[in-house]
């Protein structure tokens, strides 16, 4: 069902954990399946993401996309981090089954939520970032085949 990359990130998830005194924390839940993800960001004075950790209560795809997404944003500026969309994460994981696409949104939204938290705390505005919903829901019913 899952690609090898997904399985690798699921079995050995990178960046699991918490960051004390994080620059930004984002928690989102998936209204559809009830799963929850929390992202911790450590952003330096140049707006570069120095460290990132996550905790996920979710399916295999949720864990793997959390892991991959945190890998992908690490070292990026907060602006660059916005390019780490769920699509980009899925591609990096060699794809996800159709029913699992919504799981990757969880990671994207959690990062956005953490960035939003960071921006609010630091009274800055990140171009292209809008206030995250606490619950994300799917764009459309995916067909299960």
């Amino acid at each position, binding site marked *: 069902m*899952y690609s090898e990359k997904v*399985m690798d990130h*699921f*079995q050995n*998830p990178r960046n*699991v954990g918490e960051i004390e005194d994080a620059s930004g924390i984002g*928690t989102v839940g998936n209204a*559809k*399946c*009830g*799963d*929850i*993800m*929390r992202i911790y960001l450590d952003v330096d004075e140049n707006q570069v993401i120095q460290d990132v950790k996550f*905790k*996920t*209560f*979710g*399916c*295999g795809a*949720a*864990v793997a996309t959390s892991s991959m997404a945190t890998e992908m944003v690490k070292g990026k500026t907060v602006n660059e981090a916005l390019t780490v969309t769920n699509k980009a994460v899925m591609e990096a994981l060699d794809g996800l089954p159709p*029913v*699992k696409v*919504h799981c990757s949104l969880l990671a994207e939204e959690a990062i956005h939520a953490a960035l939003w938290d960071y921006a609010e705390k630091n009274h800055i505005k990140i171009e292209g970032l809008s206030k995250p919903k606490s619950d994300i829901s*799917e764009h459309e019913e995916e067909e*299960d085949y």
Partner: protein
Amino acid sequence: MEQLIYLDNAATTKVNPKVLDAMLPYFSDKFGNPSSVYGFASGNKQAITEARENVAEILGADPSEIYFTGGGSEADNWALKATADAYEKKGKHIITTKIEHHAILHTCEYLESKGFEVTYLDVDENGVVDMGQLRSSIRPDTILISVMFANNEIGTMQPIAEIGRLAKEKGILFHTDAVQAFGHVPIKVDEMGIDMLSASGHKLNGPKGVGFLYIRKGVKIRSFIHGGAQERKRRAGTENVPGIVGLGTAARICADTMEERARKESELRDYLIERVMKEIPYTRLNGHRTKRLPNNANFSFQFVEGESMLIMLDMAGICGSSGSACTSGSLDPSHVLLAIGLPHEIAHGSLRLTLGDDTTREQIDYVVEKLKEIVEKLRSMSPLYED
């Protein structure tokens, strides 16, 4: 990796090699169409008759009351739709429960779209149907009560004989989805007042793609699949001879071994439940402690999501399943676990382990050890868990 430990016998079972042996001649040797005139095919007709007798005997029914189908879902659909069709002049109200299999629930939704009214009964925290609510839901236009014999997720068995008595008293037909129960626990249609009963071959070490509907003599029944004159003109389609022979053989074997099997399985199941409940904190047993299928254990591990747990068990060579939404293509958490009152996130962390007659104590020990590790690992990743 260790040998595979298959603990998902509620999803499907291995075809018993004896069953397969009984089926084999009917594929390429005795392959004739049972409706044919020539002697070459008459043995096939006879084989179907024997399978029908086997099944009937176990239920205490007459062979002429057994209609073979293409599986449990077809039997469920048939029972509900044909009853609705045949009795709609009498009324358009059906009573069922919130914890039925989707083959019942989605059929009820379909019937609702056709103008029928359906009452979905609540169950208590153990998954047992509320008899008081059932009694008070009965209306003059109620034509059918459909309550499953045993639940496929949490294993809870319903007070079938009591429901049967009530239905009879009120003159209402009573259907039970016994897909999980047939062959595993004793069922007698007369004593229990059952008018219709669905079962499926692959849940009792028989083949997939074959099942049956028991229909008590005298119940008005319409065809669901129209066409040829098979199954007393009630279910068209060339008979799946090997499948029917397999189902009959599996039923016979299950009946012969039921007592011993149930004793062994429930003993191991209790051992599994005891160890898990004692050794893994924040764990809940779902389903009734004693009135449950002999082979069913269903746990909720707080702070843990089901699919992740299943994948990790899989990596340890263990096949289990989850009430978790993600597994079934649907994303809603199990309607059964919600109906017994679990909050979403706990329903989401459920694990069903269903034993087979070849499950050993060593396997259970191994599973418990692995489960402890896995739950711990997932909890350490969970944003919900603070230790």
